[in-house]
């Protein structure tokens, strides 16, 4: 017995296989984590560096880039005005989101308030399917259904802002809906019971109590939807017509930041002003994405 205890004492004060395992586990998981951090920093650095080249080496004026609608970089640095694309990107994003929000709210209310289990489950699957359809497929549907429809109804080519909005509407709908559902589910059940007990109708309760309580969550959902709309490239590029023009009506062809990048990057030579100008568009996209993140954080902080 005493002999056994003696050897135990010995072991208890020495490192063992487990000590090594622990070090090993911490190191490799930390390596993955550091890898991800380096990756994000590298993305920001690379896009930043290339995106700034137009301003630093080609001396394009930042004010021209942001506020001029003259986009013809092949003709020189005075013609690097991205305003038309910036405006189109924002316009398309805002209108698609505005269109999607009522549908998303209706779906969210339907799924959290009406407790038909089966139907809710089918709707859930439906939203997941909508979210799962690849963006090029949406773009293809836009080209084969929406564009001809617009052409028939309004005349013109059909390719244009309206087609872009309609395609993006379907694409941001599942994003906004599923996050809205989460927000509505987060509202405590007592709120509803209390309001109904006071004699309020179902709609008064839902609109004045439930929706109000879920507002920060719904706003977050909308921001995520906007971010998706702003960053979507191929589907929009396929239907918007790709003409860098200031939008003057909804059926005129236009170009967003993403559509211009997608369609033109392959046509420019690396290092030229035309190429650098496109990277500046990418930088603008990156900064917008960071801004969306920031807004989501601010809303989240207010909520907590």
């Amino acid at each position, binding site marked *: 017995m005493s002999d056994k*205890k003696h050897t*135990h*004492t010995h*072991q*208890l*004060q*020495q*490192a*063992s*296989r*487990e*000590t090594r395992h622990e070090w090993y586990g911490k190191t490799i998981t930390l390596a993955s984590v550091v890898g991800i951090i380096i990756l994000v920093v590298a993305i920001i650095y690379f896009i930043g560096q290339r995106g700034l080249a137009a301003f630093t080496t080609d001396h394009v004026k930042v004010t021209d880039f942001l506020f001029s609608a003259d986009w013809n970089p092949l003709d020189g640095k005075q013609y690097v005005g991205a305003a038309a694309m910036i405006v189109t990107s924002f316009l398309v994003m805002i209108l698609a989101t505005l269109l999607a929000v009522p549908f998303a709210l209706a779906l969210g209310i339907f799924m959290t308030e009406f407790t038909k289990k089966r139907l809710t489950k089918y709707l859930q699957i439906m939203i997941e399917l909508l979210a799962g359809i690849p963006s090029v497929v949406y773009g293809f549907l836009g080209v084969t259904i929406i564009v001809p429809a617009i052409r028939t109804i309004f005349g013109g080519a059909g390719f244009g802002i309206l087609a872009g909005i309609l395609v993006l509407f379907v694409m941001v709908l599942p994003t906004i809906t599923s996050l809205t559902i989460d927000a509505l589910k987060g509202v405590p059940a007592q709120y509803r019971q209390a309001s109904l007990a006071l004699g309020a109708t179902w709609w008064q309760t839902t609109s004045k109590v439930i929706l109000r309580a879920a507002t920060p969550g719904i706003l977050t959902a909308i921001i995520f939807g906007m971010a998706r709309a702003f960053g979507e490239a191929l589907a929009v590029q396929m239907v918007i017509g790709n003409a860098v023009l200031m939008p003057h009506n909804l059926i005129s062809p236009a170009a967003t930041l993403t559509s211009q990048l997608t369609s033109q990057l392959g046509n420019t030579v690396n290092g030229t002003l035309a190429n650098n100008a496109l990277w500046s568009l990418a930088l603008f996209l990156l900064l917008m994405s960071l801004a969306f993140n920031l807004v989501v954080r601010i809303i989240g902080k207010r909520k907590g």
Partner: protein
Amino acid sequence: MEQYLTQIAPEQRSLETKNLNVYYGGTIHKLHDVSLQIPQNAITALIGASGSSKSTFLRSLNRMNDKVAKVTGQIIYAGIDINHKDINVYQLRKQIGMVFQRPNPFAKSIYDNITYALKANGVKDSAVLDQAVEDSLRAAALWDEVKDSLHKSALALSGGQQQRLCIARALAMKPDILLLDEPASALDPVSTAKLEETLKQLRDQYTMVMVTHNMQQASRISDYTAFFHMGNIVEYDRTEKIFTTPRVTLTEQYINGSFG
């Protein structure tokens, strides 16, 4: 505060704490100066109301509180202070095993539940592993019920069987001491009776420390009993003395059901 702690002869002590204090989150003082001598090859029961920190005390003994709390004071085991940063906690836990409140078998077969840690320790001989499985399942009084289904998932067992499997799993490591944290609290009366029977049979080979909410259980199977109240140890004595002639008023009130 009034206190009575019996002494255990040095050669019979298996584990001893000296002025053990536990702090959570830097400021919450959960356990105050607990000094306790735990005898070998006996069952020591820790009783007390919820929040008396008896589980906190138990979990400090095999350093399971390391990540969540700060533990000061000494824990003497095998002649050294095991509450020291240089102690290899992995080796320590092989010698001081633990069974938890809720049965927590791994999502593996019964056989793998017992052999997983052994294999991790480098035991490869399948005859040795087979023997360890049989021995520990017999010791935990589970062998006859599962010997034909060793490769079935442990999660398919009943709650009582799962808890005895957890005991077998701990015994397979051949520990000196077994810490039991309310091992019967999630079990029905029949399973509880069976578990108590198992523990009684293990008393001859292991030192056991058991937290329990159930005073009948403590009086039925333990040799020594320690009564905890709000993070302090109030009384520690042979079980029959605690339950028949407690020396501290607070203990008497608790035993009589005045609070708790």
